[in-house]
């Protein structure tokens, strides 16, 4: 499993340039927002959390179809499915690799982009915490969507239609956590909910993803 993780990471970094692409997309979204809503600092500060969360969500979406598509095309997914490692484990590892290559850089870059959007001081800590807790769920759910659409020729647009509604709870609690944290309110409830959703997603959804891949490989 570790070998698989290293292989996926190496592929993501060396081949195709997908690694920095999500981050660049995130930067572009953040750059374009002030053009859309105007450069006033207080307006930007109010919507900064939402913009950063949405940007992270969309940047994550961008690289989802790469999770299984290449392996499906060259047949290595068939090999992985027949390997001694259970397919559920393979799916989880691939989602983890996706998170390390897109989710983690987004988490680390988010405070920097927060400066651009006049994010208020106490929000930085909670922004990093919420993204750190929330983005793994995004990757795992994204892997589920990618598993559903892996056999399709043009699954990209369909993939976003399938996956984005699933992101609703994560987004709500993630943004709420930052909002409450920034204004000094009680953060326990959204924090626990966000962590709970992510933990449950990681525990349960890979089974559905693996089932979908088995159907697609049939």
């Amino acid at each position: 499993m570790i070998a698989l993780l290293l292989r996926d990471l190496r592929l993501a970094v060396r081949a195709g340039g997908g690694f920095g692409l999500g981050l660049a997309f995130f930067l572009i979204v953040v750059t374009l927002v002030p053009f859309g809503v105007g450069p006033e600092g207080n307006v930007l500060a109010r919507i900064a959390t939402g913009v950063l969360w949405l940007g992270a969500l969309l940047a994550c979406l961008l690289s989802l179809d790469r999770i299984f598509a290449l392996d499906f095309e060259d047949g290595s997914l068939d090999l992985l499915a027949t390997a001694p490692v259970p397919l559920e484990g393979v799916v989880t590892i691939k989602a983890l690799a996706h998170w390390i290559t897109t989710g983690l850089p987004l988490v680390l870059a988010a405070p920097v982009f927060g400066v651009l959007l006049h994010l208020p001081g106490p929000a930085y800590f909670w922004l990093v915490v919420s993204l750190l807790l929330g983005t793994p769920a995004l990757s795992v759910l994204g892997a589920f969507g990618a598993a559903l659409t892996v056999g399709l020729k043009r699954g990209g647009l369909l993939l976003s239609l399938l996956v984005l509604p699933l992101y609703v709870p994560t987004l709500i609690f993630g943004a709420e956590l930052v909002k409450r944290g920034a204004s000094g309110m009680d953060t326990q409830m959204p924090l626990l909910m966000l962590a709970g959703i992510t933990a449950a997603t990681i525990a349960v959804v890979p089974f559905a993803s693996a089932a979908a891949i088995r159907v697609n490989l049939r």
Partner: protein
Amino acid sequence: MSIWEYANPVKFMKTSSLVLPWVTGLAAVCLVVGLYWGFFLTPEAENFKQSVKVIYVHVPSAMMAINIWVMMLVTSLIWLIRRHHVSALAAKAAAPIGLVMTFIALVTGAIWGQPMWGTWWEWDPRLTSFLILFLFYLGYIALWEAIDNPDTAADLTGVLCLVGSVFAILSRYAVNFWNQGLHQGATLSLDKEENISDVYWFPLLLCIAGFVLFFVALLLLRTRTEIRARRLKALEQRERMA
């Protein structure tokens, strides 16, 4: 005599062809009587004026929108566990009806909300979760359309329906939490139906029965069409092989 007999398409076609005209007729009677009663024979409510009449379309369609998804969940489970084709086709046939019901509920809600709340749309928990339900229906139908092999499509949409159900419920409560306390009194809550007097309650009940029967009639019709389309496909394939 068990329900599983109807997993046999031949048996299903035979029985449904007998039942279909009756259900259609009853749905028509219920809807015509219920809507006429509701629209023309009930007094205007004190606070609502004429706008209260939207309730006879709004409440039944909203109920159906949720219940059709539950029905799809059950039929998807039956397909995934027992591999009965009729079940998968029934789920496929129900989805567009559910989509339209959700749409009707949203539109009539907007029409009702305009004179009552002074706005067509409010990010109220109930309204928002219906919009999310609408998106789930769209995704489900789009996945059916995108996959050529019917068995693969049935499997994948079944899995999507299961995962989607969990997240739809989760979204419902998350949305409740997200906009809590901002729009009190703006919800169309169930307790209002308890406040409602019998004058409105009986025609509403008739309308709900009409919508349920209407859905069953449409579902039977659409499932029969799907079964016929599947047969046609099988025949064409056999022809090509020969």
